[in-house]
């Protein structure tokens, strides 16, 4: 649920990075944080375990610029990917305006990708949403892995409806900003469609 502040002429939107455990959601945010001009970002918050696994969420506020005199701000969140944190994932989806599904390109994670995507659909339903209602993009991460599945094969499996998709390597940053731009465009286009 975006928040429009007519007094400060600001629009704030929430984007959630979703995906199976260790697929690189936090790494996406860390790369965005590292490469963004300090004037345009806030502090990155990570609620993680001692072993640096996401416990609740990561949070990164970003300013993108102005559109029609409104400052656009995006709040980026990740969910904890591990299966047993499902209650937390549901909470983080509250008020989501757009999503990035980060898929792990390793063949061993094929099943985990499918399960996580189905979990996203199930959890959206709890908020009265269908995945098709939501602006979302697909990221095929870890393209640098030697055994990475072909993108075309992953697309068939995970993206049959053809939402915008991006090949990425979050550790080197390849495809990270393209993915973010893709989802941000989807969110703004959706606001336009809603006649906000």
């Amino acid at each position, binding site marked *: *649920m*975006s*928040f*429009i*502040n*007519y*007094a400060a002429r600001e*629009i*704030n939107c*929430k984007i959630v990075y979703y995906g199976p455990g260790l697929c690189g959601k936090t790494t996406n945010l860390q790369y965005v944080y590292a490469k963004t001009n300090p004037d345009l970002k*806030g*502090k990155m*918050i990570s*609620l993680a375990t001692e072993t640096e696994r996401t416990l*609740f*969420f990561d*949070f990164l*506020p970003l300013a*993108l*610029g102005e*559109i*029609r005199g*409104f400052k*656009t701000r995006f*709040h980026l969140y990740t969910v904890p990917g591990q299966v047993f944190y499902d*209650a*937390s994932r*549901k*909470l*983080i989806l*509250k*008020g989501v305006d757009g999503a990035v599904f980060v898929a792990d390109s390793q063949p061993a994670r094929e099943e985990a990708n499918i399960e996580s995507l189905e979990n996203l659909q199930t959890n959206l339903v709890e*908020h*009265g*949403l269908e995945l098709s*209602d*939501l602006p979302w993009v697909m990221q095929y991460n870890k393209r640098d892995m030697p055994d990475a599945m072909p993108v075309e094969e992953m697309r068939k499996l995970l993206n049959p409806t053809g939402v915008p998709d991006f090949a990425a390597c979050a550790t080197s940053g390849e495809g990270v900003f393209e993915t973010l*731009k893709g989802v*941000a*465009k989807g969110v*703004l*286009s*959706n*606001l*336009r469609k*809603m*006649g*906000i």
Partner: protein
Amino acid sequence: MFESPFAMREKAFAAIQVIIDELVVETGARGILVIDRVGQLLSRTEKMEEFDTTSLASLAAGCVAATGGLARLLGEKDFPSHFHQGESGSLYINRVDERGILIVFFDRDSSLGLVRLRARKGSAALAHVFKESQKENEAKSSPEHSAFANITDEEIDNLFSD
């Protein structure tokens, strides 16, 4: 169904500011924030400017969401207020309505009892402002009041130009 955006106009912001400026005096608190359930900052009293209020808003919303989740697991509808006690500073968090959260940061110059009492009254006043604000937005939700209905693809693309 996609949730419609939460919009607030100048009149509502001014009303919220009056309520929290009064509340901070009445409670003797160090500062007050009003945020929405998603974690967006709506308003703050002056002394809160020294803190990272964007992060505070996000974490407080997460905290309220997690506490609500705990309540539901225990068969309660919600735990609408909660209190975090520190060595010198404490937080009192109160759900305003379905959309808003009031956060009072106070120290030994105040007390939990006083904060709780005044925050209840403040929350009711804020809930009234939110309700009126929603009515105003519904009245203004026509294309001529729309900020984004006519934006072009080019304008969206320009946001991302390096």
